[in-house]
Each structure stands twice: as C-alpha cells, then as structure tokens.
C-alpha cells in the first residue's frame, strides 16, 4: 500500500469477512428448513434465519464498500485519510450496531419489514455512521485537492445510498404506500446507486489491473451510470406490480426494466474490452478473475435472470415464488459480493509480505467453488420456482402440496449451498491465515493523474 492510512481498509475487510461467514452459516440453516420437519422450529424459526441471513448480507457488503472506499480514495487523491481515528470509531459503531441488531432479531426485536428490519435506534446509528464516513472521505478529497471521476462516481453512489435510506425511517399506516416507499431504499440501492459503487470499483480495478487508459475508462463509466439510471430509476416500477398502485406502472415497469440489462451488458463489455485492448499489466490474476467474474455474473444474475420474470404478463404468474429467490441470490452475489471480493483480492497482497502477488492457489479454489456453488443454487431455485409456478399458480395445486413435490430441488439447493460454503470458507480462511503487516511503500513517481475537475 502507498499510504499508511490505507491500513484502515484491512479492518473493514476483516469485519466483512466475519459477517460473510455468518451469513452463509445462517443461509445453510434456512435452506435445510425447506426439507422439514424442522427440529429447531421453536428455537430458531425460519423467519429469524431469513432476517439474519439477509441483514448480514447487507451489512457485510456495505462494510466492504466502506473498506474499499478507504483504500481507493487515498490512492486516487494521493493523500493520507483525513482522520484514521474517525474511520476506526466509525467501524466500531458500525460493528456494535450490526451485532446488536442480529442478536435482537433472535428475540423478535425488529420492524418486520423485509430487508429494513433494523429497529429505529439502529437505523439512526446507520445514518450517523454513513455521515461520519462521507465526512471523512470528503475532507480527505478536499484536503488533497485531487478528485477523479472514479471517486466522484463512488462517492456519489455512497452519498445517494445514505439519502435513499431516509424513506426507510418514515412510518406509514397504509401498507401499500409503505411498500411503495420501501422500494425507494431497496430497489434504488441495488439497481441504482449501488451499481454506481460497483461501476466505480470496477473502473478502479480495471485501470489498475489492465493499465487501460483512464481517460477512456472514465468516459465510459459516465455512460454506464447514465444507462443504469435510465433503466434503474423508472425500473422501480417492476416492484410496483400487483401492490395497489395505478395500472400504468405495469407497462412502464415492463419496458424500463427490460432495458436494465443494457447497462449490465455495457459493464461486461467494459471489463472485457479493457482487458482485450490493454492486456494485463498487473500480476494479480486472482483479482482479475473476481473483477471480470463480477461483471459477467452481474449480467447473468441481475440482467438476464431479472429479465426472465420482469414482464408483467410473466410476472403475474411468477410473483412471490422461488423465481424471485433465484434472481435475488445470483444478482446480489454477482454484483456486490463479487465486487467486494475483487477489491479484497486486489488489496490482500499489500497487507502481507508472505502473500503471492498473483494470488494463492487457495484463492482460485475459493473463486471456482463459490462460482460453481452459486450457479448450482441459482439453478436449484430456478427449477424449484418453475415447478412451483406451474403446479401452484397455473394448475392450482395447493402451496403445501406443491412444496412437497419440489423437495428434490431443495436437496439440490442444499448440496450447491454446501459447495458455495466451502468456497466462502476458503476465501475467509485465506484472508485470515497471514498476520497483516502494514508498511507503506515509498510512493513511486508516476505521471500525475488528470483530475476530473478541481476538488470542492
């Protein structure tokens, strides 16, 4: 690492890895409950496992984003962080918030609103942490006077993620209206501003790994952001099907969310063409795997599998079935879990002298086992979901009888989930097995970056 304060990122990544491991453990337990009967029904019922599984995902991915940002911004702005202490205080507060929220869920202390289960005090802490984080980053940039497009997009994404969390704080008496605004947070995060974050991390990694021309990469980053928002903002409409909103959201949702893969195709072409044109200038081929993998798996999971059930005529039958779980798993993994693991894989050799620059063989096993496992899980949910839609929604068989008939897919799910867990376990083990050493390299003289514009 070039700057001493980049060490902060390691501790964010370490927390993210711990939470990732827990997320997978609870996910496996939840999957086992599909086979039933459930011996833990009165101790750890499905609803608790589900809340813990999804909340851990959101928390660890956000931790990864923050860690990644604390790594990227000093390098892009060529300066130490404004306040290392603030970054650690922020991490501590974040961990306390996350851990107490998870423990609370075991005692039904939550709002019972999907993905926004955090109790109000925790929601307030989340906002405070986000503000501390943005303050620290903005002060760093302001002090350096250097502000690149890549970090502009990154900070724009993070700032808007904080703003879009605010509707989650408002209570509504009308369930339909509450659902309407819940998607302002959830959808506009994952199909809007989080994609800005993913896009900018992709740009950063591609510039470093392939040596692609920054001017070109940042120009196309703008185009991707434009495409993400054209489809993503109005694409919120696909969550407004069948929930008590005016009819026009149906055709509008169909058309705009059919456009969503365009931005993701753009992102995949972006990664591929950068590598093809510029070759690889960096020895860390493991990070290249994760970077390219994220772009491709996003196109598959978020783009194609989303498209598969986004048209209202299709969604009428698939809405509220395991088809949604198929899309959700592949999309979140490809876009967000993989981009965080790409940044971690890229930075990891900098945190220890013992690591191979190319990435350890164990790291490749972790990559391929995770990919195989997630692909298998996606197929399991897909086949289970197709069976469910046909038997329950089209033929009219009862829910419970249908679930019995698709048990074999839940066995597949558990098997694929185990393979995924093995890959995740190896990644986490590989992360923790060397003691970190934090030595700042003497900054080598490089050609000055072209700042996108003067800092604020």
């Amino acid at each position, binding site marked *: 690492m070039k700057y001493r304060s980049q060490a902060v990122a390691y501790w964010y990544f370490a927390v993210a890895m711990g939470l990732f491991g827990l997320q997978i453990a609870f996910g496996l337990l939840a999957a086992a409950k*599909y086979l039933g009967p459930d011996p833990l029904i009165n101790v750890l019922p499905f609803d608790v496992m589900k809340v813990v599984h999804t909340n851990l995902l959101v928390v660890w991915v956000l931790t990864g984003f923050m860690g990644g940002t604390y790594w990227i911004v000093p390098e892009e702005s060529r300066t130490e962080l404004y306040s290392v202490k603030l970054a650690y205080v922020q991490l501590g507060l974040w961990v306390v918030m996350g851990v107490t929220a998870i423990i609370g869920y075991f005692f039904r202390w939550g709002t019972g609103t999907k993905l926004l289960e955090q109790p109000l005090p925790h929601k307030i802490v989340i906002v405070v942490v986000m503000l501390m984080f943005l303050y620290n980053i903005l002060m760093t940039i302001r002090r350096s006077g250097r502000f690149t497009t890549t970090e502009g997009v990154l900070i724009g994404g993070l700032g808007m993620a904080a703003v879009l969390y605010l509707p989650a704080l408002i209570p509504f008496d009308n369930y339909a209206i509450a659902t309407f605004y819940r998607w302002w947070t959830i959808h506009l995060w994952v199909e809007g501003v989080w994609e800005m974050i993913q896009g900018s991390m992709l740009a950063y990694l591609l510039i470093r790994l392939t040596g692609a021309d920054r001017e070109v990469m940042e120009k196309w980053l703008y185009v991707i952001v434009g495409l993400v928002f054209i489809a993503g903002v109005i694409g919120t409409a696909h969550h407004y099907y069948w929930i008590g909103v005016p009819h026009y959201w149906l055709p509008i949702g169909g058309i705009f969310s059919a456009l969503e893969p365009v931005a993701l195709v753009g992102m995949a072409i972006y990664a591929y063409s950068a590598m093809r044109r510029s070759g690889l200038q960096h020895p860390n081929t493991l990070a290249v795997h994760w970077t390219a993998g994220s772009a491709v798996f996003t196109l598959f999971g978020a783009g194609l599998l989303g498209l598969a059930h986004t048209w209202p005529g299709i969604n009428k039958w698939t809405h509220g079935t395991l088809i949604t779980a198929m899309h959700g798993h592949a999309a979140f993994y490809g876009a967000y879990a993989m981009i965080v693991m790409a940044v971690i894989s890229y930075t990891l050799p900098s945190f220890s002298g013992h690591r191979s620059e190319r990435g350890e063989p164990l790291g490749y096993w972790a990559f391929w086992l995770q990919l195989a496992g997630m692909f298998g899980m996606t197929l399991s949910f897909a086949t289970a979901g197709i069976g469910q839609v046909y038997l329950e929604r089209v033929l009219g068989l009862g829910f419970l009888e249908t679930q019995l008939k698709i048990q074999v897919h839940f066995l597949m799910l558990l098997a694929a989930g185990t393979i995924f867990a093995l890959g995740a376990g190896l990644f986490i083990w590989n992360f923790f097995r060397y003691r970190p050493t934090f030595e700042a390299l003497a900054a080598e003289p490089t050609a000055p970056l072209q700042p996108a514009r003067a800092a604020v």
Partner: protein
Amino acid sequence: MTRQQARLFAIVSTALVVVAFAGMTVDSHRRFPELTNESKLTPQVIAGKNVWHENNCTNCHTLLGEGAYYAPDLTKIALQRGSEYLKAFMRDPSKFYDEQKVRRVMPKQNLSEQEISDLIAFLDWIGRIDNQGWPPRPILVSGAAIPGTDIVRGERAPQVTGAATSNEPIALGQAVFNATPPGCYACHSISPGVNLAGPSLADLATRAEQTLKDPAYRGKARDVAGYIREAIVDPNAHIVPGPAYSADNRSFMPGSFGKDLSPEQLDHLVAYLESLK
C-alpha cells in the same frame, strides 16, 4: 464522444428519469385512497398491521406477493377462509396441519384474541386492495386436487357434463364453483376423500340424503337441494362434524355467500352441487 459529452449524457438522462418518476409518484398518491380503500383503513386495521410487523410474518409469508417464499401468500386469505377459520387457526396452527406430513408448519404465535381480530381485519383490508386482479387464479394454502382437472388418483369422474358455456344450470353452477369470487374450490374439493380447509363435496347429494334422515340433523331443510342451499347461505344451521371445520358451534365457512351470490348464481350452484352423487 468526449468525456464532457458522456458526463452530460449521465446527468441529463438521470435528471429526466428522476422527474418522470417523481411525477408518477405524485400521481400515485392522488390515486392511493381509491385503490387501497383508505376510507376503510380503520384503527383496527392499523393495529392489525402492527401485529403483522411485530411478529415478523413477512419473513415466511408473502402479502401482495412480497415477503419470503417459505409459507403461503396471504393476500386473499381473509376472503378465502373467513374470520372464524382464521381465528381458530391462529389460536393453534398445529391443529390444522401435521408437520410430519407437510414438512413445515407455522409455529404458534401466542397472539391475544384482540391481536388475532386486528390481524384478520388487516388481512381483510389487504384482500380488497385494487391490485390489477392479482393473483390471476387463487393461491391455495392446501389442496391436493387440481381444480379443473376434476379427477384425482384415478378415481371416477364427477357426473357433470357440459361446458361452462352451456346454458344448463348444472354447467353454469360448475362455472360459479370454479370462479373467483366465490372461489368455492379454494376450500372444497369435489374428489372423494380430499378434504381441504372444508370437507370434500364428492357424493354430496348422497351424503345429504343420509344427513337429512339422521336425527342429529338440526337444520330446517326438507330435501337435498334445500339442504345444500341452507349450507351455503347459513353455514351454522347444521355443523358438519370435524375439529377442523368448526369451533364453539360456529362453522368456519364464511356466512357471507348468501349476500354475495346473486339468486341465479345460488340456484345454479345448488343445481351443480346436487348433481354430485
């Protein structure tokens, strides 16, 4: 394209879609009161919504198709099952489903009677939201029979002839039985031995004759058609035995069909059910 042009593209296109989205949001607010029957959003419905949230229902069930996918969708459950059934179910779900058989059951939630009533009021309100007719056909919690195919486990076909397009009262009655509302088939199968939330209606006419002769019969009907009509309009006139069908001498079948069905629909439905021998 230069970088400045690319940036302009990102900013202008984002601004345009945000304006369009905001416009549709404002318009939706104009329409919400009518689409969601806001005039019926009583304090009890809101209290029921709080019960729904406090018990984390959405992380197993779906409502309006949103939530988890581990337990059945409950959008129309209050309209399908009626409040008597739901009250008994919420008091102790384990009486209704056997975990060994269906592999998953609802854990008992320890709700107070007030909370149960509130929750049912909330679910009833949800069921009446104008949501573009979703689901396109009722989602059944349990039903081994496949409606429309009529034959299960290779057993004999019900003696109903004629398509729903025919003008025969029996065929029209079958269409009423399979239509939503009233969605009779959500709780009653017409296959022998397939008991859903309500008893199977296979051989209904034959069994009705026996019931009428039985001294335990307490209703006022004199013939099979009268008995069937009475059972639809006033389910409490004679309670069919079985712990899953009634509690405290109150049938779980909603008592609203007498009001909701037109006299012709009722006639046709009786004709159809009378044909099940």
